[in-house]
């Protein structure tokens, strides 16, 4: 693979948005990838610098995964890779070939039955504008699976990586608590 042109540091040692500071543009290399998303395999021809987030949103039109900051600071792009929560904006699409990716679109059952966390979010009104919500829900599913939903205190701590500007936090805690109880029983 010719991805060396991207990884080698430029002469002055500084990258500018992935471009060498001397102004040279690396020749774009197209990768042919197969990504397994929500149980389906998708073929993609993309540049190596495409993030998983932009692959989902711009190429595969799976826009449920949101871009809030594109800097790994807000959690809106949280998806699952092999069952673990991952920030799609800090993950290159090329890194997750051969792994199992789950997005918000793949969380409910095929017959439309909501996941317990989704149902709890609706019942507890754990969102307003809805923009951070897919990331919150993906994080919450993983949080419960990790065993980090044992108390409100623990839920607050382990959900702290997902920002919500509408301020739905108390309702998010209530929803995660409720879903964790349902999933345990």
């Amino acid at each position: 693979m010719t991805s060396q042109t991207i990884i080698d540091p430029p002469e002055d040692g500084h990258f500018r948005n992935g471009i060498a500071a001397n102004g040279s543009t690396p020749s774009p290399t197209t990768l042919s990838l197969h990504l397994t998303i929500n149980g389906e395999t998708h073929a993609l021809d993309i540049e190596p610098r495409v993030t998983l987030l932009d692959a989902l949103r711009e190429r595969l039109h799976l826009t449920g995964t949101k871009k809030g900051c594109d800097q790994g600071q807000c959690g809106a792009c949280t998806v699952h890779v092999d069952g673990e929560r991952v920030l799609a904006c800090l993950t290159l699409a090329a890194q997750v070939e051969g792994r199992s990716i789950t997005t918000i679109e793949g969380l409910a059952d095929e017959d439309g039955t909501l996941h317990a966390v989704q149902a709890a979010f609706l019942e507890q009104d754990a969102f307003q504008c809805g923009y951070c919500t897919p990331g919150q829900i993906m994080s919450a599913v993983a949080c419960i699976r990790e065993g980090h939903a044992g108390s409100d205190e623990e839920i607050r701590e382990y959900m702290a990586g997902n920002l919500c500007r509408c301020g739905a936090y108390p309702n998010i805690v209530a929803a995660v608590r409720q879903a964790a109880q349902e999933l345990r029983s």
Partner: protein
Amino acid sequence: MTVHDIKHAASDSARLEAVGGRLSRVDGPAKITGAAHYAVEQQLEGLTHAVLVGATIAAGKVTAIDTRAAETAPGVLAVLTPDTIMELRGASDWFGKAPAQPTFSPLVREVTFSGQHVAAVVAETFEQAVAAAALVKVWYDETPAIVDLSDGKAGDGIPIEAMTKEWGDAEAAFAEAPVRICAAYNTPREFQAAMEPHGLIARWEGDELTIWEPSQWLDGMARTYAEWFSIPFENVRLVSPYIGGGFGSKALALAHSAVAAAAAKMLDRPVKLVLNRPQNFTSYGGRAATRQTVAIGADRDGKIQSIVHRGVNETAVDGMWVEPLGSVTSIMYATPNFSSKQNVVRVNTVVPGAKRAPGENPSAFGIECAIDELAYELNIDPMEMRLINYAEQDPHAKKAWSTRQLREAFAAGAEAFGWARRSPQPRSMRDGHQLVGWGVAAGTYPVRRAHGEAVVKLLSDGSVVVESSSIDMGQGTYTILAQTAAETLGVPVENVTVKLGDSHFARAGVTGGSRLAGVMTGAVHKAAGQALDELIGLALSDPRSPFQKLQSNTLVVRDGRIASPRGEGPELLIAELMSAVGRDHIEAKGDTLPASTTPEERYKNYTTIAMSIPHTEGDYSRHSWCAHFVEVRVDEDFGTVRVSRVVSALDSGRLYNPKLAESQWKGGIIMGIGQALLEEGIVDRRHGRIVNGNFADYMLPTNADIPDIQTISVGIPDPHSSALGGKGVGELAIVGIAPAIANAVFHAKGKRVRDLPITLEKLI
């Protein structure tokens, strides 16, 4: 345009669905499954991507731009500069006032703030546009900038005469008062920081422009685009089905919006432009930094004799923003003497804008801290101090309150919080190393009113469609309008579909100032009432109707079934009646404007804010009210502050959906916690640049920062404020939170911090 089918458990009662019921969000299923497509998520054929290049100086001139490397980069379609972007016509402001300049360039040669757009790159893919934008080289002739209010060059600013409020002889009465306090209160530059970035997709088809853009005001923004491009208003269609948070920031078409629309026209291809997160801190204004001094003179019983208030807010070099700092100061407490004046100071910033409760929020920080200081000065309980000075009428407008449940709010909040157990002395409550403090403050927000319109359609299958160009950014518009239509028409709420967020629907004014719910429930109530009248009229008079022989004066509709009030005669589903009389639909457009309103006035009503109705119109002064009770824990050694408990009692009048209203109240309280303890735009003093323009450095409250919050509704229906009795919900709860926390911190630590945010270095 978005359609919501309402699904909820069969056990939900009719009560849940009616206005005032706790119906879950009808747009909820779309939002929790990823099916809700926000504005810039539309998939268009041939879509291109634009990325902006921002100025790296805060003042000066662009002397040269080298675009050669960018132009030859892979995938690049165009590099736009002030020299190459098409010229636009200047657009009028949100009052409808004509522009100062006849032309407008959204890319500038004269730079007045750091980050201002100087160039843009359009490419086939987002990655190509980002990479090429980094290759644009810009040279500047930099001149000294005024970086913020504390800059030595800033001066005293410009007096804003319209902000002056005076009665009695405030200065003399203050000088003679037996007890006096006087202090300065500062709030920093703050940002709305909605989770969804600003951005848009622009597409031209001939001289028709479609814009998909998160918007708090479709019709106002459509007017701006129409004026920029000299095309008829009707040729612009704005689509904004969901908005990922606005908080005041998404009501105007901005410079970056113009860049995208111009690029789409120049390239004849649809263009998507989304601001990256740092650009969201420089491309539109957050809350202006403010400075206030509040002087209160009182007698020894705590009765206020005089309030003297002076305020300053920052504005831009080339734009005006007034943050009305005397708005709460002038109405919260009874005083025989009062004076408030305000200046604005020009600094090198993007024009500040509206952030949740503009004016009322910083105003309350000043007066609600100051009255607390007076309470400690006199050794009077801070809540008692507020009741001693309770304003029985609007002290400024000299009019009766429409409703003011503030006494009730203090009583209910104090009871739930356990305020009576408070130990009065600062530093007298502790839990190990934590000093515990309790604070109280009041808040208020005026009832902003306007006229609205809506279309209600009854279809042949008995279903109902509501259409409006108003929007839902999380307040619950879809839900409460479905409840309003269902209740008015007498149909099950799951039969109602609400369509919002398309400027081709019935027009709506700005969604801001907590006015939308009152305006739109009124309009939908009226339109649905007209549709119902027509339905019943048909049922009674059409020869094909089985009710025609009944000789009844009226009919009732319940659960989607039409019958006589006493139950004699037939009972038909709406669909059966429509079929019997051969109608495929009934459509009614209802508006709350006077019948004599001209088309020009209607256009002005929906596309400017010039026709807003004053909250003191007629005999009453209309406001929402609240009382906040807060517990903080301050680490004695480190000065770290944690909010450990909040109880707020709020009077928003009648609540159309308490479940959703409580969520908005809590959201306001949480944004207020951020304001009090975390949020501050930090400006680099050399280059006038916001250095913490991202979510790691401009700290928002996280889940781990927020305790249990209890909200209590103490409102009663207010017939003077809206058709259905509600006042405002969204802005109210943030007002008064920061002073309640500052007052609690003083009670905990014995140190008064008058400068937000209350960070640990100010306490140790």
